[in-house]
């Protein structure tokens, strides 16, 4: 597998990524070690879903594959599940373009 496996439970695809991908269904409260640091999951994180490896402020870019995959819509603590409820795309936003036209 490309990337770095944490405790056999999650995968970090590239150095500098701010999220890790769960390799199995992970329960809230589980501690996942990443070298010197440890992250305690604040939420249940289903297989294939992501959690924050570090605290992210609102509007901060989220990195996976060593690339930007979106930005947070609110502050996210380390160990929180990162998905559509707190992270959004910055691309293909015809809705934003339409709202700007109306303004």
């Amino acid at each position, binding site marked *: *597998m490309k990337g770095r496996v944490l405790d056999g439970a999650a995968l970090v695809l590239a150095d500098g990524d701010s999220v890790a991908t769960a390799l199995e269904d992970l329960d809230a409260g589980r501690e996942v070690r990443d070298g010197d640091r440890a992250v305690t999951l604040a939420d249940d994180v289903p297989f294939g879903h992501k959690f924050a490896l570090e605290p992210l402020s609102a509007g901060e870019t989220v990195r996976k594959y060593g690339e930007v995959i979106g930005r947070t819509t609110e502050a996210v603590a380390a160990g929180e599940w990162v*998905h559509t409820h707190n992270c959004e795309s910055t691309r293909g936003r015809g809705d934003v373009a339409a709202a700007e036209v109306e303004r």
Partner: protein
Amino acid sequence: MRREFTGYRRESGRIGVRNHVAVLPTSVASSCVARGIAAEAGAWARATPHQMGANQPDEARAQTERVLVGVGRNPNVGAALVVEFGTEDIDAADLADRIARDGKPVETLSVREVGGTAAALQRGRTALDSLNEAAADARHESADASELVVGVECGGSDATSGIAANPAVGDACDRLVAAGGTASFSETPEFIGAEHVLAERCADEETRRRLLDRVERREATADLMGVDLRGAQPSPGNQEGGLTTIEEKSLGAISKGGTTPVRGIVDYAERLPVGGGLVLMDTPGYDVESVVGKVAGGAQIIVFTTGRGSTTGNPVAPVVKVTGNPRTWERMRSNMDVNAGAVVEGDATISEVGERIFDEVLAVADGKRTGAETRRMEEFAITEIHPRELAEVRGR
């Protein structure tokens, strides 16, 4: 690693991996009859029923014609029957001529002219039998992997697609390109957010400019319609599988093309080169239409990755299914061909699975049937050009 397979040499010089007789309706009005004719004939006859109307705007009609001619010219097709209802703008005789230019046996049938569906089924059946005899004359000979044009597709993606199945298929594409073949992937909306990575890999400035222009046009389509791509990209199923944004989906999706330079980008259903390395095709993100575009471009085999599970096939090209999700491999075993879930479980490396996929492609080229073929999964759809897109194209 094996490199040889036995295929069907066509007059055009290209090699087919199957010897089907295609039954191509020119519109929705002749699609049922086309399907009926092929169904009665047997598994060697493959119909491509579709939803396009008898009268389309010029640009859309040209695209429909390009797809039908392309499928007819696909080297997996030994002979073709073009079926019209008789009122279509598309002229069956013209399509037949364009397909026959390569020296392929082609006939036409008009439902109205022969006197309705019953007569058409009967006449079609007779025509198919003689076309099949003609197709059987094809030279069955040994060919090299360098003659393969492999289309790569993904559908029903989840987080394992970008981690396991797509990189493994990418590894197989690298092997194919190293062997001198052509690999092609598409779905332009799924380049959004990853186009800078692809642009860096373009072999020349012209390809780079064209690629960025196509991505911009797809993104502008969302603006044009005042919609948020997030409604469809990632799809609700993708989101359930853990994909949050189109950027995340794209970054995972592009890995299925491997790591070699991007040699070019062709239009939907435009001819793909033999021995061309990695070539992109500008298609929509809808997997069935995207597969059809590449088959019309001459791809003999499609390698299709899925995370959540997909059973999609194609009438004339075998579709090899690869899943990186161990649960999908277990649950949908009969529809899957290669397990990349071993990567997620730590039992195999991406390169090991890549080699397995390459071997499977060669075995399928040599005649091994895929799960989709065994179950006669033969989805077919042609991309429609949206009226607002049409206005945009015309205004340009």
